[in-house]
């Protein structure tokens, strides 16, 4: 039986629930970027983009494109609204901020995550393109790394593995994995299944997960 997977928006909503008031956060391209749309209104968080801006406003919607200003573009190439309290700085300072541990959370996409928190997210094997970008720096530097991704590949292969088979971005860096059917915490003991999507059982999540999952004592349905 094919269970219903959560949408990209719901994955982003769940990941955004991790944000705390006052956090400095970097969002990767794709699903992670959607998190910006789901920050609860009682929290003030600051988004940082690798190209040298902190505290920028919401991304322009498609019908706002007459307001495009080339001063205001994030690392993913998306235009944003300016916001009071934002600042621009040299990318050298941007990466000191990242590597020096001044970001509370980095939300990234991934191809694979291993049971000890290794991350592979910049390149498929045999791909001539190289997409390291700032991912290695963020993975090493951010206080918490949250991966937001689909639980399996398009052809149903597991992405959460005993060991990554794709080129590594960084070792033992992932703290939390939010997928379209589960929320998994990386611990010293291994991967702990904390939450599952509506209608799923822990066993069904394990079936599509290569790495062994430890079922949390307080396993619950994903809360948004």
């Amino acid at each position, binding site marked *: 039986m094919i269970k219903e997977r959560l949408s990209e928006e719901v994955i982003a909503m769940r990941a955004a629930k991790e944000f705390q008031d006052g956090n400095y956060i970097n969002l990767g391209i794709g699903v992670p970027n959607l998190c910006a749309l789901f920050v609860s209104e009682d929290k003030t968080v600051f988004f940082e983009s690798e190209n040298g801006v902190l505290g920028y406003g919401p991304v322009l919607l498609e019908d706002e494109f007459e307001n495009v200003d080339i001063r205001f573009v994030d690392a993913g190439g998306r235009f944003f609204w300016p916001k009071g309290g934002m600042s621009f700085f040299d990318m050298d300072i941007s990466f000191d901020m990242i590597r020096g541990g001044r970001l509370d959370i980095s939300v990234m996409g991934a191809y694979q995550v291993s049971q000890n928190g290794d991350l592979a997210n910049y390149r498929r094997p045999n791909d001539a393109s190289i997409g390291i970008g700032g991912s290695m*720096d963020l993975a090493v530097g951010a206080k918490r790394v949250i991966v937001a991704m689909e639980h399996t590949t398009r052809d149903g292969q597991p992405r959460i593995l005993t060991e990554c088979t794709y080129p590594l971005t960084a070792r033992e860096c992932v703290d939390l994995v939010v997928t379209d059917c589960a929320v998994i915490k990386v611990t010293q003991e291994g991967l702990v299944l904390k939450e599952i999507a509506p209608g799923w059982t822990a066993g069904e999540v394990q079936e599509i997960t290569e790495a062994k999952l430890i079922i949390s004592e307080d396993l619950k349905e994903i809360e948004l």
Partner: protein
Amino acid sequence: KVWNSFDEVISDIPDGTSVCMYFWGFPGSPQNLIRALKNNGAKDITLIIENYIPTPLPPEMFVGPNLLAPQIKKLITPYYVSSARLSSMGMPMEDQSSAEQFEVEPISHGLLMARLRAGAGGLGGFYSPVGVGTILEEGKEKRIINGKEYILEMPLRPEFGFVRAHKADKYGNLTYLGVGRGSNPIMAMASEVTIAEVDEIVEPGELDPEAIVTPAAFVDRIVQIPPGSPGGHQHLTEQVKEILKIEWFRTPFLATKKQEAS
């Protein structure tokens, strides 16, 4: 320091040199210096660039690093996509594979910044926590410091730095606009010869001394982009609005409407 022609300001660039520049989409790349380097024809260049992302746009609208592809011997970049790949993804562009035959040295954005910084400051090298356990450690020395593993990384000191700034005064002090700042300041600091193209050259004293980002000592040559011409802020802003009318560009660069989560 003030030059009048982009072709002349880089006329001494030899074959086999190293050039660094910022490229990250529309803001902050040295459009006219890229064009001039194409005209110049210098070969076997080591290009140190933030992103190598080909653009299919007509050069009078916007040029990307792919304009220089036949002149590049080696690329040092954190982000490389070939024209063939973009073409296969549906971007309306020529496959430039025959030109894109250069060696590619991978690096991360942060490492590129740190290596340029070490070059700017005359350091001999540094120990990086980034890249441990990845392809970036291949062939490099590793070392445990205080129980943590690091990789020895070497400074980068490009022979030429192509910089895009907003304003310069005649002494060479620079300011930038928004994210067009990017890595332009550190590239100015790290390069042996720093050449800046700017929207406007003003008299000394017109820039706020507290808001100057790159002090004049890091800048060797400046050229003003003729008002209204390609690569200038006004022209580029107009071009981008045109470019965003093309479906292929609009989709990734502008968010779609907020969808209600189910």
